[in-house]
Structure formats: C-alpha cells, structure tokens
C-alpha cells in the first residue's frame, strides 16, 4: 500500500515536471514571472541566509579552536577547517534546509492557495499550461538564485569564523588567512555548486508539486506546506549523501 502510494505520487511528480517543461505560450510573461520569482526567492532570502551563515561560521571556528586546545595541530588549521566545512557541507546543505522552510513552504502555500481559489482552473480554461506557467519560472529562478545564495553563505561563514577567532585574539589575522589559503581544492567549490543546484531543484519542484495537487481546505493547505518542508529536507539530506558518494 505504502509502495503503491509512493509509486503513484512519484509518477504524478514526474508527469507534472514533464508538463512543466514546455514551450511558453508567451515568452515575455514567463520571463517577467521568472524575474519576480528570482526577487522573491533570492533577494527575499538574503538576510536570513547571511544571518545563519555568520553564526555557522562563528560556531564552527569557536568549537574547532576549543577542540584544538593545546594540541600540536597548528592554529591556522582553524581557517582551513572553517573554509572546507563551509564550502563542502554547511553552505549548501544548511542554506538549502533553511530555504526549504522559507521558500518551499511559501511555494506550496502560494500554488495550493491558487488551486483552492480556482485560479489554476481559471488559467486552464483560458488555455494556459498552468504546470509550465506556475512551475517552470520558479524552477529556473531557484536554480539560478539559490547557488548564488549558497556562495554568499560560504563567504559570510568564512567571515563569521574570522570574526569569532581573530577579533577575540584566539589566532592572528595572518594565521586565519594562511589557513584559508592552505590545501585549497577547487573541486570542492564545484561540489558546492552541484549540491546547491540539485537541492534548489528538489526543494522547488517538490514544493510546487505538493501545492499543485492540494485538495480540500485550509487544513490540507497547511499539511501541503508542512509536507513541502519535511519532504524537501529529507530529500536534501538524501541527495547530500548521494552527491558526496559520487563526487568524493
């Protein structure tokens, strides 16, 4: 029964995405909607991403400095560890988990609300491919903007590490920068962007899917919104592991 439901929903999700990837009826309308979504997803999330990333960087640096204690590991390793943890894991994963909560729930509620208020039916009757018009601009916007947010997150986290360790005098500016410049592997940046793009696609498409097929009233809309966050989070963690296996 559970497998049946899973297969049914997965099939429905794939078919929806197939319908969503279609030639736009009017390119300018899709372009405008994509720009609007880039603003909503990107600009609307910058503050929360910066705030969280700053603290992630600060906490990582402080805790690693504490673990090093009086060991023989050179202190400049703090900069090196903050950089790599941030780029490989924290920036893409934590940022996307946060965005699943903020953007994912918002997308599911927005599309679900349109379904309940018959806006989607109204567009269908006008002849609009609603799956394409409502989902494709959001997907494109998310896949462009979320990796940029992740890059901002990585940058701010590294600054957070600097603020938490150099300013109180735990290590010097030179040591932190030396750590940042040590053992740099460019492939990790590539991995960060791969993760960010995959997570962006997952959280947007799953949230749109759950909103698009919402039925019933406000309770079901709330459930769809919650499920969007839960399912997106689980998928992000699952794909985090898969990408780690594939790219390391």
């Amino acid at each position, binding site marked *: 029964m559970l497998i049946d439901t899973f297969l049914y929903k997965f099939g429905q999700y794939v078919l929806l995405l197939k319908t969503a990837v279609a030639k736009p009826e009017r390119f300018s309308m899709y372009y405008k909607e994509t720009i609007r979504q880039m603003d909503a997803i990107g600009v609307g999330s910058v503050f929360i991403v910066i705030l969280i990333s700053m603290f992630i960087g600060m906490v990582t640096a402080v805790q690693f400095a504490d673990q090093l204690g009086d060991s023989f590991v050179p202190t400049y390793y703090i900069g090196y560890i903050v950089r790599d943890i941030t780029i490989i894991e924290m920036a893409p994963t934590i940022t996307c988990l946060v965005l699943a909560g903020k953007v994912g729930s918002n997308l599911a509620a927005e599309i679900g609300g349109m379904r309940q*208020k*018959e806006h989607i*039916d109204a567009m*269908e*009757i*006008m*002849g609009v491919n609603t799956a394409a018009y409502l989902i494709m601009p959001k997907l494109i916007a998310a896949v462009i903007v979320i990796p940029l947010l992740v890059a901002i997150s990585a940058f701010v986290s590294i600054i957070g590490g600097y603020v938490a360790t150099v300013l109180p005098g735990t290590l010097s500016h030179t040591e932190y920068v030396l750590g940042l410049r040590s053992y740099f592997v460019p492939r990790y940046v590539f991995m960060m962007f791969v993760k960010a793009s995959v997570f962006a696609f997952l959280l947007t498409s799953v949230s749109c899917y759950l909103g698009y097929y919402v039925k019933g009233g406000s309770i079901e809309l709330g459930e769809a919104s919650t499920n969007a966050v839960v399912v997106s989070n689980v998928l992000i963690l699952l794909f985090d592991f898969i990408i780690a296996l594939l790219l390391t």
Partner: protein
Amino acid sequence: MIRTIDIEKSFGENHVLKGITTEFYSGKPNLIIGSSGAGKTVLLKLLIGLFTPNSGQVLYDDVNIFELDKKELRQIRMKIGMLFQGNALFDSMTVGENIRFPMDMFTRRSMKEKQMRVDECLEMVNMEGINNRYPSEVSGGMQKRVGIARAMVLEPKYLFCDEPNSGLDPQTSILIDELICDLTTRNDITTVINTHDMNSVMGIGDNILLMKNGHVAWRGDKSQVLESDNEVLEDFIFASPFLQRLREDALKLRHGGQ
C-alpha cells in the same frame, strides 16, 4: 452550440451523471438548475473539459472536445470565457492586469491596444475607472463584473458562469443576470449558467435544464415553468409555501382569475 451525448461520469462508486443528452443554444442563456448534489457542477466542469467523462461526448459545434489533443483543446479553450463562483481573480494583480492577463498570454497586441480593450470591457460591465484597484478593494458585485469583463476580453464564443449570483443581494443579482443576458444576445454567445437563483430562472431562463440525481428531470423555458406539472420542478422551484401561493395567484391571473 454545445451538445452533450449520453454523458456518464462516476467518481469511484459514486455515479454522478447518468446519460446526460442535451443541447445548449447560442444567443440565449442556458441555465442548469437543480438541488445540491444533483450533478450540476460536475456537468459544467465536463463541458469545459476540466473533468473527463467515463463515456459520452461533448460537442462544441460538432467537435468532440475529448477527442482533441492538448494543443487543440487549448485552441478551443481560448474561445471560452468563464465566470467562477468565487470570481477567481488573481489577488496579486490589479483589476486592469486581471482583465489584460489573457491578452498578455495569447495575443501580440501592443500595450496601448490591450489597454484600450481593457477599458472597453470595463465599460461593457459599467465599471470604468477601476483599472488600478486590487480585487480586494472592490465589492463582491464589482468583482463579479470584473470577472465577466475578464471572461469577455478575448471575445469568447462560449461563456460559462458558475453560480454568478451567489453571495449577491437580489438587486445586484438581477443586474448581473441582465448583463450576462445582454452580452449573450448581443454577441451571439453560447452561455451556460449554473444557478440556484430563482430570480435568474424566471428572469433569463430561455433554456432551462433541471437536474436531479444525475438525470435531466425537466427541460423547458421560463414561460413553461408556471404551467408545468413536473413534480421535481415544482418541488425545486416552488419549495416554500410563499412561492406556492405566488404560483397559484400567477396561474389564476394567467387564466383570467378563475
């Protein structure tokens, strides 16, 4: 003209429509009436292709819409205007943008031409000058008119109205009915109205389809309603003692006060 031939529709065990064969004519309002659960909304959604029947045909000028591919169906839908029970106006857009939306999506008209058409449609529903207001800033009756203006903007051949009078006071209801009727006759549109409103039945019911339990229980026009001895129709239209007395008085008057 729209015809349905032997339409059957079930949802699981629930057999909602049972062999509906009927016609909806152009140039006059066609009303679907019936008590709740009779299958009116399902029939309306089938007519516009939002539901697919288990069997039977829906013919738009002899074209069965369920034999069309998605692209052809979209072509037909561009000739359809629909007024929803809850208006379905997009909250994030102004009234003007709502009305302009189908033109933005499907036409290559310049912004000036589109703006002129928006003004024309607003004038048609007596709502000039509200282009820049949001749907939430206008009354329910005004929202209905804006919904009609949006439905009419691409000059549809077919107009569907789901409960156009719901939530409106009797005077506004009559104005909305008159507006729909006027647009239908003036533009020779095939208009199908799903309603509970008895004023609409007696006011604009040129072709009435009464449904009960998924069947067509009665067909006729407003002039035949008073004289009909169909029990389902009597139970539905003249449900209250007041309306029954009114009917008796009207019949007496019609037959010379005997």
